[in-house]
């Protein structure tokens, strides 16, 4: 109960003060170079310069269909609306072949140098966007 109150107080504090929100959020996440992007019929995860450990990609959308799975990965689609893809340790960019409508996706991972968990949401691939 006390912990819940602390969290709710924190939420109240953050919601009530924009400058505080900015300071707090700066502490929460830092980009560490990995990206998840929408590509033509798929999602591409790029680990950046270091190995991404225990990578998990989740997606949600309509009529999801898995076209291909990267080597060593385990991907499942539940009910045609949810994708759960365990990529394991990723050293170079990998692409999950996927089709669907209104897809939102995110990826989380750790680094071998620490226990922090990192997270990105999928964004349109920059190279493909520039090509259009």
């Amino acid at each position, binding site marked *: *109960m006390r*912990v*819940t109150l*602390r*969290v*709710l107080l*924190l*939420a109240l504090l*953050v*919601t*009530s003060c*924009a400058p505080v*929100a*900015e300071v*707090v*959020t*700066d*502490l*929460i*996440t*830092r980009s560490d170079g990995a990206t998840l992007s*929408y590509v*033509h*019929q*798929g*999602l591409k995860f790029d680990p950046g310069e270091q190995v991404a450990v*225990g990578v*998990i990609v*989740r*997606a*949600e*959308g309509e009529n999801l269909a898995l076209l291909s799975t990267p080597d060593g990965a385990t991907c499942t689609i539940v009910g045609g609306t*949810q994708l*759960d893809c*365990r990529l394991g340790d990723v050293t170079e960019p990998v692409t999950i072949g*996927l*089709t*669907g*409508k*209104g*897809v*939102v*996706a*995110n990826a*989380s991972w750790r680094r071998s*140098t*620490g*226990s*922090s*968990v*990192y*997270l*990105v*949401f*999928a964004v*349109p691939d920059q190279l493909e966007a520039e090509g259009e």
Partner: protein
Amino acid sequence: MMQFVRKHWRFLLIATVVLAMGRAMAQDEFVFDPVGWGENPALALTALIGAVAMIRQTKWGSSIDGPVRVAILTAVIGMLGGVALQMFGMLTHPTVAAYPSPWGGLLYGLGLAFTAMTGVAVFNYGAKKLSSGEQTLDIHTGQATSQILDFILAQLRALVGPAKLPAAITAVAPIIAEFAQSKAVLTDDLRANLQARLLSAVRAAGLMGQDL
């Protein structure tokens, strides 16, 4: 093995430092030496920090977390130890031995606890500085719970950006509250589950996805 080290790195680090200090101070073999504790505050301090670390690793002590609770635990153990030393005639440190029992022991224990907490605080500050900027928001809950909260907040931050974060936190406060009370460790399955739940939440809130 690596998982154990990752999970308990702080304890292992403290234990290593304490052992090294004890070794250096003993300059001989490790011995159970309560007479030495009552005579030499440095030895007593080492024993006190070790005792607190050990208690916090037990299932009864695992809920003792945060600066206030740990300080209280340290003070209680310090006082009990000090009183016990004086009761059994082993408190010979000149500054406190002159006080009548149990006040000399209480004073000795409190002094040790204060020194220990100050030292640990300085140590933690230094450890944070050495952790390559990966420290995240610390709400002083359990380590596992705090990790989950960090993860949820990181998701929100990545999704909506600073400007809309306050509203997003309000929207997912029930999820935060649910996990704030859990003792769950952020396993892969739980991480995947949280990712999916927040994706569902943001889609329900009207975030448009992309056609592939």
